[in-house]
């Protein structure tokens, strides 16, 4: 870039720029004047909406289950379904998604079954993660959804690296990474965006600006106009979108994907939304925000908006809505009953996958543990379940020094 010299000092703050918010549907589900419908077929739109609806119902049921003490922990996506599902629907199904933790809607859209959700939530023997992570830490290799990791923002530079590999592979895929406006304060966010710009990587950084990082409001998270202006510092394409408008999110992400894949350029998307539910089952928002604030956002419910638009197009009806809700609720409850009855992962899963192969030292530690559990099986009911207690402790001394 050419340097322009001036001879009077002048300071800038960024207020010289203003970033608009892209939106297509008003809260009544009508297109704004001058807004153009994105290329979305009836089937595609229905799939998108049904994933939003299924996510809402899964969240309601599982939060209720947590309150009943059936589940240790839960996190809802409520209020942000359009942002998550709208973005996912604009990707190729083989594009990688590296999410933060509140993006179960992406998995729902890609066809993760209710059984698969439940097995992870209950950490039973069928959980792909082998009962090692807290509920909602889903992952699916076949659906190109990276297993969730609790540390915030670590997935963002990983997305840059993953997308760099996709670029070298040359198969036309990209990576989309979700994170919150709070996580964008972490150093990993800045490292990731800078490296993606410098190395021209096909990655989409999707910020769900939902107003809160647990209890900390966005106004105490950053002084600037949200997350979007940070893209300027990295010379990156950026768009801000109404996160409660599934159509706008879909269209913004669809075009971002074109930039990423066709030009090998990263894009930052800031979706403005609101976390209608608590941060997690361990949180109580009444301690830090007003009910009236929540009510104001309920009016902007992303499901209602999409539903109304689809109804006007004749793509969805009240009857369908009612019967879908009923079917989903029943499926969630039945599946939950099955999942919670399944046994825990076997004791051996304590030491597998630490390394590609179990090391002799780890095998010795497990053998020692087994002998101990045989002596006190009542104290370790889960571990004892997978042990044959009739065996004498001499039977698993293999590997002992």
């Amino acid at each position, binding site marked *: 870039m050419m340097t322009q010299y001036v001879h009077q000092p002048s300071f800038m703050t960024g207020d010289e720029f203003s970033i608009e918010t892209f939106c297509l549907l008003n809260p009544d589900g009508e297109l704004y004047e001058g807004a153009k419908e994105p290329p979305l077929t009836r089937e595609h739109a229905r799939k998108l909406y049904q994933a939003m609806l299924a996510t809402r119902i899964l969240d309601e049921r599982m939060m209720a289950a947590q309150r009943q003490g059936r589940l240790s922990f839960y996190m809802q996506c409520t209020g942000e379904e359009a942002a998550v599902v709208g973005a996912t629907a604009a990707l190729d199904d083989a594009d990688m998604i590296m999410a933060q933790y509140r993006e179960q809607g992406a998995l729902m859209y890609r066809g993760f079954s209710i059984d698969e959700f439940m097995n992870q939530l209950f950490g039973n023997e069928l959980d792909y993660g082998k009962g090692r992570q807290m509920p909602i830490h889903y992952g699916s290799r076949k659906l190109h959804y990276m297993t969730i990791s609790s540390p915030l923002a670590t997935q963002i530079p990983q997305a*840059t690296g993953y997308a760099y590999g996709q670029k070298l592979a040359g198969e036309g895929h990209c990576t989309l990474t979700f994170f919150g406006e709070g996580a964008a304060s972490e150093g990993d966010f800045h490292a990731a965006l800078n490296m993606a710009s410098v190395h021209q990587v096909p990655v989409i950084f999707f910020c769900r600006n939902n107003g809160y990082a647990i209890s900390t409001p966005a106004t105490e998270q950053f002084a600037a106009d949200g997350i979007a202006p940070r893209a300027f510092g990295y010379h990156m394409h950026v768009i801000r979108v109404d996160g409660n408008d599934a159509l706008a999110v879909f269209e913004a992400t669809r075009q971002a994907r074109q930039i990423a894949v066709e030009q090998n350029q990263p894009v930052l998307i800031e979706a403005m939304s609101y976390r209608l539910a608590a941060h997690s089952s361990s949180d109580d928002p009444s301690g830090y925000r007003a009910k009236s604030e929540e009510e104001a956002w309920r009016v902007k419910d992303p499901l209602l908006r999409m539903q109304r638009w689809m109804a006007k197009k004749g793509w969805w009806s009240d009857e369908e809505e009612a019967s879908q809700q009923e079917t989903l609720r029943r499926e969630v409850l039945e599946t939950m009953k099955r999942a919670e009855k399944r046994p825990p992962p076997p004791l051996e899963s304590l030491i597998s996958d630490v390394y590609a192969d179990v090391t002799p030292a780890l095998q010795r530690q497990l053998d020692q543990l087994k002998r101990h559990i045989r002596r006190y099986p009542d104290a370790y009911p889960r571990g004892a379940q997978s042990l044959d207690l009739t065996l004498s402790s001499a039977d698993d001394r293999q590997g002992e020094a």
Partner: protein
Amino acid sequence: MTTMNMLQAINNALDIAMAENEKVICFGEDVGVFGGVFRATSHLQEKYGKARCFNTPLVEQGIIGFANGLAAQGAVPVAEIQFADYIFPAFDQIVNETAKFRYRSGDLFNVGGLTIRTPYGGGISGGLYHSQSPEAYFTHTPGLKVVVPRNPYQAKGLLLAAIRDPDPVLFLEPKRLYRAAVGDVPDDDYQLPIGEAEVVKEGNDITLVGWGAQMEVISKAAELADEQGIACEVIDLRSLLPWDVDTVAESVFKTGRMIVSHEAPLTGGFAGEIVATIQERCFLYLESPITRVTGLDTPFPLVLEKEYLPDHLKIFEAIRESVNF
């Protein structure tokens, strides 16, 4: 065979790995056209192109975060952290991500292709921030492998093994030996085993254990002891995680005495782990207390570096005390 210093051996290993597998990708600060501040990656960009050998911005957490993602995608990244003293911004990515990637996903995803190379250690007038030996922070992290070569031959064979290992490896390079250690290195491709110690010198009186640059110091102490008629058995651990308990225990069964030496501070150092394990295994065979000869429990000094370091004389004194116990 070619006579090489350790940097040339490392460069040769990277060259072989990149020629063999186009998924091997080298990057880090100044790694590209300049070939790294120590020149370990010299000419690799010229040979394999900018896409496979390149500079990164100056951000260690970004380098390792990027490397984790790249490895998860199926590539074989060899990421360089310019000095081990500067690895700490990447600590979260290494400890919480690299090490747990396979485990937390139930083996759906892994970053086993990743190797992190980083120069470590003192004796180069580097002061606090160009001298540290941070191995113990990482040996406390299940899921990582930690490997340290002692000479050019070991460096090439262990680095090739690390790059091809199915688990992520932290490869600590003793920078004091980069140019100082010179030796014959086979031109061909070869690997040395990760997780196996090597008995460098046999002896019946006392076992001396170390790794990396400390092996040179330990060998010198063993020579001094030899002159006094004390036959030392010298063991290079080579791999700290996992470490070869059997080889060390076998030796101590024979000698009944052991000294462990490392440059890092005493408290919480990896020597403590070795000592605890060996006393458990060899309690009835021990003739004297196992001792540690290490750096002091201070930051790494500058002007008084020589005084701080566990040199051959300090080890020799420890040998005498052990034998005369």
